[in-house]
């Protein structure tokens, strides 16, 4: 049933500082709302438990993309449209702009934010595998100050994160060192826009003298959290891509993931697809054309 707006409070302070002090005054009782593309859907269904909300939408401190000499710093309030419009992200972090282009239709991309995707912490979220393979770091902020945490440590269990009740995600940082990597991204679902993934993959690889010298593979919807496939990577790293390696890597990937049956798909289908995606990536690498 639809929620009654009179049951909810919503504040929209003008500065980050005042928002952080509201969060600190009553830790855990105020919930940030950015583009609302997750929270307003819960609200529409009468499932939004938080009754006190504080808007961070359009906040200047959160909505900018800074290109520094050695890293790109994306404000957590940047929308998918902001990400897609940024030429450096498109050229140096193509897995992220591709994932942004998958995230619902244009209206959704104009509102949904990267910070919202991270904190909503769905295992099916499309941008999160890209953040894993680019080894992103998050800057978290509260009245106590800022701290920087490797993104790979952020999700601690199904929809659980390291974010403290008085903290916001301020920015996502990625090192600018992937220009020599081949990138591969694919979303398997009923269709790209407006459909939740059954499985999605983001992968990067660098070849040196025909040998896979570095590789990173991450997937969504195959585990309780977005998953980096470290064991599969180890199987591949240092080897030449040939049919034996592909088949070994596919088996490793199918064993490494922990998919479940749900309304969108089955564990068995997801295992098969995950193996196929790893195979497709490696075969394209072999032919020098991963995208």
């Amino acid at each position, binding site marked *: 049933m639809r929620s009654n707006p009179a*049951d909810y409070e919503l504040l*929209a302070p003008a500065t980050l500082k005042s928002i952080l002090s509201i969060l600190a005054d009553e830790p855990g009782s105020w919930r940030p*709302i950015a583009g*609302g593309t997750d929270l*307003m*859907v819960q609200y*529409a269904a009468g499932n939004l438990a938080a009754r006190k909300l504080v808007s961070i939408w359009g906040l200047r401190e959160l909505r900018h993309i800074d290109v520094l000499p050695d890293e790109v710093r994306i404000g957590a309030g940047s929308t998918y449209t902001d990400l897609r419009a940024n030429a450096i992200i498109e050229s140096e972090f193509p897995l992220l702009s591709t994932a942004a282009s998958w995230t619902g239709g*244009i*209206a959704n991309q104009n509102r949904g934010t990267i910070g919202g995707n991270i904190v909503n912490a769905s295992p099916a979220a499309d941008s999160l595998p890209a953040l894993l393979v680019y080894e992103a770091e998050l800057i978290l902020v509260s009245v106590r100050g800022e701290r920087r945490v490797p993104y790979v440590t952020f999700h601690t269990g199904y929809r659980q994160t390291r974010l403290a009740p008085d903290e916001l995600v301020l920015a996502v940082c990625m090192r600018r060192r992937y220009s020599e990597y081949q990138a591969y991204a694919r979303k398997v679902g009923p269709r790209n826009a407006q459909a939740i993934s059954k499985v999605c993959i983001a992968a990067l690889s660098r070849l040196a003298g025909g040998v896979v010298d570095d590789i990173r593979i991450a997937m969504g919807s195959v585990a309780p959290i977005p998953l980096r496939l470290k064991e599969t990577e180890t199987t591949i790293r240092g080897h030449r891509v040939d049919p034996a390696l592909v088949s070994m890597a596919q088996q490793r990937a199918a064993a490494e993931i922990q998919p479940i049956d749900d309304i969108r798909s089955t564990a068995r289908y997801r295992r098969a697809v995950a193996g196929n995606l790893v195979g497709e990536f490696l075969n394209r690498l072999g032919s020098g054309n991963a995208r």
Partner: protein
Amino acid sequence: MSTTTHQPQKSEISFTVNGQRATVHAHPMERLLDVLRQQVNLTGVKEGCGEGECGSCSILMNGVLVNSCLVPILQANDADIITIEGLASQDRLHVLQQAFLDCGGAQCGICTPGMILAAFHLLSKNPQPSREEIGEALSGNLCRCTGYTQIFESVAEAARRSTGR
């Protein structure tokens, strides 16, 4: 049911809609969709799914397409909003509206305001879109009647007419 003694406060919220200033009294979590329909009487904004999936409530907020069912009214404070009612000038339809009429782009009409605004948003950034670009721009807008072909053709026709090709 709810036994809250809490007295919820309405706020005064102002925005510009189709070039006119509007001030409303609303609970901050009321949906922009409902405020536009019920308080500003702009019923061209349609509710389909109410959860971001169908695009029939699409409007332009500060120049970008958004689904008004997912916008709490407080986030529209001071915004510049355009709805379907803002496209025609006096008695002349907007080129997109005329093209939708001429090409059969509207049947029951529920999706039409959102489709036209999504197309308007596209053409404002890309006056000569390809068929693929039209498809992507409208991918968040669902239609249960037309099968989309006439809609895509309407947008392509409007683009041809307005770029004079």
